[in-house]
């Protein structure tokens, strides 16, 4: 059974791009475009991993991670943050908030897959 990844990004082009990359690696994908939906879909779909943008409407990536940590069914799900906010401060805050890895935009596909592999292996 292939693993399921939830892609959370408010930019449809980027959701589609990440989807194409993940499909070639035989991952299943589900999508959310804002923070509130992300949590609802995550609880319904029970993904193996979440690719999470930080700048989101309806609660940013940090609050999504915060709420995931308080939900029994989601607190073990690994999160890889994919964000354009690549400054060291944001990166550090994301990791402290519970992200397994941080991938900056524009996304390097090798870096992305390395982050996904290691996050899945650790969970």
């Amino acid at each position, binding site marked *: 059974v292939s693993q399921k990844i939830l892609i959370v990004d408010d930019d449809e082009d*980027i959701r589609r*791009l990440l989807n194409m990359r993940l499909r070639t690696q035989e991952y299943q994908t589900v999508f959310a475009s804002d923070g509130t939906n992300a949590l609802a879909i995550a609880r319904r779909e029970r993904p193996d991993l979440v690719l999470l943008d930080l700048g989101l409407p309806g609660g940013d990536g940090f609050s999504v991670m915060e709420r995931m940590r308080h939900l029994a069914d989601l607190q073990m799900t690994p999160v890889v943050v994919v964000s354009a906010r690549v400054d060291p401060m944001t990166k550090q805050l994301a990791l402290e908030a519970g992200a397994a890895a941080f991938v900056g935009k524009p996304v390097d596909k090798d870096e992305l897959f390395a982050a996904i592999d290691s996050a899945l292996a650790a969970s």
Partner: protein
Amino acid sequence: VDATSARSRAAWLGGALLVLGLLAGFALVLVHSQERSRRELEQRFSLRASLAARFVQTYVRELADLERRQASRDLAGATVSEGDFDRFVGTFGFKAAVLLDDQGRALHVYPSRPALRGVNLADRYLHLRRALRGDVGVSSVVLSAARGVPIVAVAVQYGEPGRRRIFSGAFEPGSAPIASYLRNVLPIAGSRLTVTDENGNLVVGTPGTAGTEEELFVAEQELTGIPWRVTASVPQSNLFEPVSGWTRWVPWFVFGAFAVAAAIVLLAVRRLGQQRAALARRNLELQKLDRLKDELIALVSHELRTPLTSIHGYLDLVLEGRTGDLTAEQREFLAIVRRSADRLLALVNDLLFLAQAEAGMLKLTLEPADLVALAEESLQSARPNADAAGVELELDAPDSLAVEVDGSRIVQLLDNLVSNAIKFTPSGGHVRVLVARRADRASIVVSDTGMGISAEDQARIFSRFFRTAEAGHEAIQGTGLGLTITKTIAEAHGGSITVASEPGRGTRFTVELPVGAGREQRQQMLQEVAA
């Protein structure tokens, strides 16, 4: 800020009022003391006038008394002969004299006027009537019929009841001791003292500045028992000389000087305060502007990343052939798009890096590393560009050189220097990277045989966005940020960068990094650089 300025305004107002109050008080004291001095001078002058009056009164009474005593002794008894009378008058120096009986009729007259004998003179003269009543009689000023000079007569009564006589002797006041006394009683220049009778005729007086146009101070004193008046007058300027003239202005000069000094000090301090406030405002504006600039750079770099993510991602998908085969020309053109997108991303990264460094947010991850390996990594990635430009690229380094640095930043530094060297070196030239250790410092020297940099430009090449004119002419691509970033990285490591160049011959950049410096020390340097 408004509350602060309102408070400081109130403080200023209070200070100014206090100073004004003090000055006004000072001025009042000065004016008061001047007034007091003037009053004192007036009183002193009036006192002298009344002294003069008393003297005149005493003198006249003494004179009358003397006459009475002399006359009662010398003229008492029998009928005084004409010769006796004349001798008596001569003894006292009277200019004229008359002896009357108890009815006021003339018995003797000197100088001899036979026509007056037996005439009742008391009917004619007030002072004789007063003498008849027993008072001291002093006449008005009369002109001596004989000599035409003003004379005054004193009349007294003497003798036993039933044989009363009135003696009246006239003297010239001007020649009397009164005049000399009056001259001395008023020592103030220009003062004048006069004794006038009830008709306003001058009895005696001192010469003065008659007819002066100056305002006079006048003190008058009536005599008692004698219908005369003593008048002392003096030009006010003379009377008040001790507190007038230029001396009278001295307190005002002092007051004025104080006021001017206080005003200057107030204005100067106020001006300083305003300048300080203006500077503070300006400083605040600059800080705001600086913050805005940093925020703008950070925002722009983030906002540019999202579209660049799509450009990169989809371009890669197409170039990978996911959408079908590409013609050679399609592939070539898309590769150009990809390189342009890469340059755009590099620019965004550079801007973000500098914004972070200036905000003090640049964090180095110092780890043990091999500087030679880092140099090899950088040269390897630069080799395709060097080959394309026809530039020979060589590394001169020992087997390894252990340092403690942020590896990715040092590679960034090397990439900047090496790619610059390749860009500015014409085909056939070469770029050499030398890595060596000197004492406790590691040095990286990147030299080329390129166009070189003028001495003038060498001083500015580390400034943000600076590009040499040659770079512009030769259409060599760049943002003018690479060397700024390189310098920032070198200094963040506690190192330095210098340039040496000869136009037309080549350029040599030398980076020196500490090898053995402790982590803490470098962290401290980093903070200083950031600050």
